[in-house]
């Protein structure tokens, strides 16, 4: 079977790749493009560690065929900081100690960014439900939620 040619924009760069039709977007990001910041925790859309933003929507890269990404614009964790300036969420996660092992962190940051891009003033409940698709087993979520709420407050001011 011949490979599928896919053109995308990933983190503001035009990226073309060839993929097998079976490959997920996550497979291509990690194994072929070596963007290993997106993690595979379950391959079934239940942990959110592979969260990316595609055409403005938060999605699990493990639940997309790479071929489906044709023509789309994708944001991954590798594109979140602006040069040496961390995104305010990244800085708040550091300041709040909102990570322990850190493997879920890229997914949480991308998911939180998608939230704040849409809703700059979320309540704690809105943050918790928005992030319910991202599993963290280390932190008990407390410091993550605080980091997101404080980023929102800081950005609004």
């Amino acid at each position, binding site marked *: 079977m011949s490979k599928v040619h896919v053109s995308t924009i990933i983190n503001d760069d035009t990226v073309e790749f060839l993929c097998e039709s079976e490959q997920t977007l996550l497979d291509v990001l990690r194994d072929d493009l070596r963007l290993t910041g997106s993690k595979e925790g379950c391959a079934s859309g239940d942990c959110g560690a592979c969260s990316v933003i595609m055409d403005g929507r938060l999605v699990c890269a493990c639940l997309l065929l790479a071929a489906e990404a044709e023509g789309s614009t994708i944001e991954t964790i590798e594109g979140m900081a602006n040069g040496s300036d961390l995104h305010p969420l990244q800085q708040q996660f550091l300041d709040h100690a909102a990570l322990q092992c850190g493997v879920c962190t890229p997914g949480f940051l991308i*998911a939180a960014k998608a939230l704040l891009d849409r809703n700059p003033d979320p309540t704690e409940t809105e943050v918790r439900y928005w992030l*319910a698709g991202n599993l963290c087993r280390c932190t008990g979520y407390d410091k993550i939620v605080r980091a997101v709420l404080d980023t929102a407050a800081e950005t609004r001011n």
Partner: protein
Amino acid sequence: MQYEAPTTVDQAVALLKNSGNASKVLAGGTDLLVQLRSGMIEPELIVDIKKIPEVRSILKEDGKFRVGAVVTGAELGEHGDLKAAWPGVVEAAELIGSTQIQGRASLGGNLCNASPAADAVPALVAAGAICMIAGPNGRRELPVGAICTGPGQTSLSPGEFVVSFLFPIPKPRSGDAYLRFIPRTEMDIAVVGVGIHITLDAENVCVDARVAVGAVAPTVLLVEESAAALVGTMVDDASIDKMIAAVRDSCDPIDDKRGTVVYRTQVAGVLAGRVCRIALQRTRRHE
């Protein structure tokens, strides 16, 4: 495996027709990708229908909403008019999975995956939504409740797929609602789901009711006896209790990792009561 992304309904039908049973329609992919990954299915052809404009849009036809089969849960939730007209359908669609899943999952996929526990289906059945189906022999319409025939099984013929859903114009004093029970607050498959649509007359007498229950039988049940318990009443506590009893009588669930027969039957009734009261409240929402 081959991947195709046709841009018209006719192209999609042609691809599906030529490949027979060896193909799968790809909508949002949130169930299909999991099945592919686990080796549960091994199709030769994947037909991605998301590049077809007709299946991606929400339109109004003669005052009726026509919702494309692959419109995502997130898009439904952002559509103020649709939400105002069919809040139960939209809240059901929005309960499918996480925020990430909401970015992909669709009514069409949720229906045609044919899980007895699909969240959108009881609400769609209660709403009386009609599916527009395209296939080798042209187009046909079927009520949503006629699509699923058993777990993972549909009445669609080879080459057919669901293009869109047509919703009736909501009557002035009508309301719909959907609730499901899950052990956590998010991320679980429904242990039980109940969708109810009721219509009152000017004297607050129920003139029409549709009660649909998910995850308590091989397919979503439309419980006529429950509807009968409400029609002609003021939807008071006594009639709601009768409606609940009829829901429980209709349940024929299984024991599995997600719930027991006893539990599902009991909670189906509990949810039916809660959903009915929300739907009743919504009959007054335009006043």
